[in-house]
């Protein structure tokens, strides 16, 4: 099994709603895979399904050689998955330091990773004692990603990292994510096709809860018809 993560024909219900109706995604190690598709296509639910937050009703999910569908979210995370939700979920009443501390899985995780995190997001060093709730949107996004780096993770699920951020910050965020992909795999949900196309090596297009196209980003960029059909613009 060469892929770090394999999601196969997954179906997920939220209440009565059949949100995912057959999503298949593969994420190889040391790569960035982008989930593309329109609003409401099921991209966020795909990430939540992988994390076990909305468990799949059907289908299988393998991560690092283990079946993870049906496991509890904390067990899935402990395998080495870091989750960065689209609403960032920074703990507003906790300082930056405490936000990172929550993510420790073994004693001393934060001490080991602190320098690395500050290298990627230098702002966080200055803001270390600040309450999460007083950070700007971009700083919160950095903190949310940094939080996923505290433990020894091998796969990051990042939902909409560029949403609502100024272009300069997006640039910075992209650099950081590209740098991370040297050491771990990233599954990215990104509305902004420009950002996604510059970051990702691979893509999966989700449409109405189904994965309908996948392959190398370089090939997608040559296929203007496909882009227009599923992604509308650009």
């Amino acid at each position, binding site marked *: 099994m060469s892929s770090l993560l394999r999601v196969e024909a997954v179906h997920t219900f939220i209440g009565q709603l059949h949100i995912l109706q057959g999503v298949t995604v593969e994420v190889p190690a040391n790569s960035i895979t982008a989930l593309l598709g329109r609003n409401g296509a099921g991209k966020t639910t795909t990430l939540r399904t992988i*994390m076990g*937050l909305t468990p799949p009703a059907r289908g299988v999910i393998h991560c690092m050689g283990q079946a993870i569908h049906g496991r*509890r*979210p*904390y067990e899935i*995370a*402990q395998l080495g998955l870091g*989750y960065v*939700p689209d609403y960032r*979920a920074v*703990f*507003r*009443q*906790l*300082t930056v330091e*405490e*936000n990172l*501390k*929550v*993510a*420790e*899985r073994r004693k001393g995780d934060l001490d080991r990773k602190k320098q690395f995190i500050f290298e990627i997001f230098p702002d966080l060093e*200055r*803001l*270390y*004692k*600040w*309450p999460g709730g*007083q950070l700007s949107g971009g700083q919160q996004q950095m903190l949310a990603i940094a*939080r996923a780096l505290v*433990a020894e993770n091998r796969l990051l699920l990042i939902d909409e990292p560029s949403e609502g951020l100024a272009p300069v910050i997006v640039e910075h965020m992209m650099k950081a994510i590209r740098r991370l992909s040297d050491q771990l795999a990233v599954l990215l949900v990104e509305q902004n096709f420009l950002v996604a196309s510059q970051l990702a090596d691979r893509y999966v297009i989700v449409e109405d809860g189904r994965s309908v196209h996948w392959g190398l980003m370089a090939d997608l960029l040559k296929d203007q018809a496909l882009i227009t059909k599923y992604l509308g613009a650009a």
Partner: protein
Amino acid sequence: MNTSAPQLRTGFFRQSLLVSGLFVLGLVVVNFVFFKPGTVAVVLLSGLYQGMLFFLVAAGMSIVFGLLDVLNLAQGSFFMLGAYSGFAIYGALPEGTPVEVRFVAALAGATLFGGAVGAAVEVGLLRPLYARPVFQIVLTFGLGTAVNELVRALYGPAGLVPIQKPAALNTTFSVLGGQFEMYRAFIITVGFALMVSISLLLQRTRLGIVIRAGVQDSEMVQALGINIRRIFTLVFMLGTAVAALGGMTAAPFLGAYPAMGGEFLITAVIVIVIGGMSSYEGTAIASVLVGLTRATAEQISLQYLNTPIMASVSILIFMVVVLLVRPTGLFGRE
């Protein structure tokens, strides 16, 4: 340390502290207007004593409410169970055991018993119902009622006579000419020590950080690899253990009787509402405020009406006043 970092204690928090401080000041002024200095000292101490007991019941309820979204209406019964189990341990020790040993064993045993029953309730009864919060409230209410009736059936409706206190605590001391029981000062000490300990636990330990994070977003805490259910059980258990310790601490003074749980539960709910639901600081400060209000009103009505009748009414009036000034409670947000 970055000294320029904005404080966690934002303007909102300082404003809440100010409002609380004004209430305390108001109560002290009322005391000096109505009573002689000796009486003032006793009333204020008596207020602290009552406040600490309310705190011991309300502390667990408010943290559990914040983290688990369950208003544990059985908490008063844990207070009562603490008193009864403590008395049972006190009486079960062999002939010739010194009172001091019995007393400490009763405190420790009641705490452990309260914690163990609490853990069993969380795992066995609440856990299957997290998807249905309304059911949980009904469940804790029913559980409380059942426990009260069970105790009534086993020990009779009249309650138990207070146990003998350790000699060192069985005296009085004088403040500004008024006399105050040493045992009530002991209760104030225990309550204050727990108030500080819980605060340190929440602010300084990793468990505390996880609890505070979970109060905001327990799903994200799980997604970071933390078994939140274990934290739920632990927090529920700590809350019931503290309530049981409170019950046993109060029992040598109040005795143990089936209705004590209900009496303290109602006041604890009022305390939590005044403090601003899931805020720990709010609960701590509101406990003291409610205790002081109650003691002051009690003394005024004793002095002028010859009956303590105003005590219970006063805290309801106080709640209304607080909610008019701050609709979300003293430290509550949104």
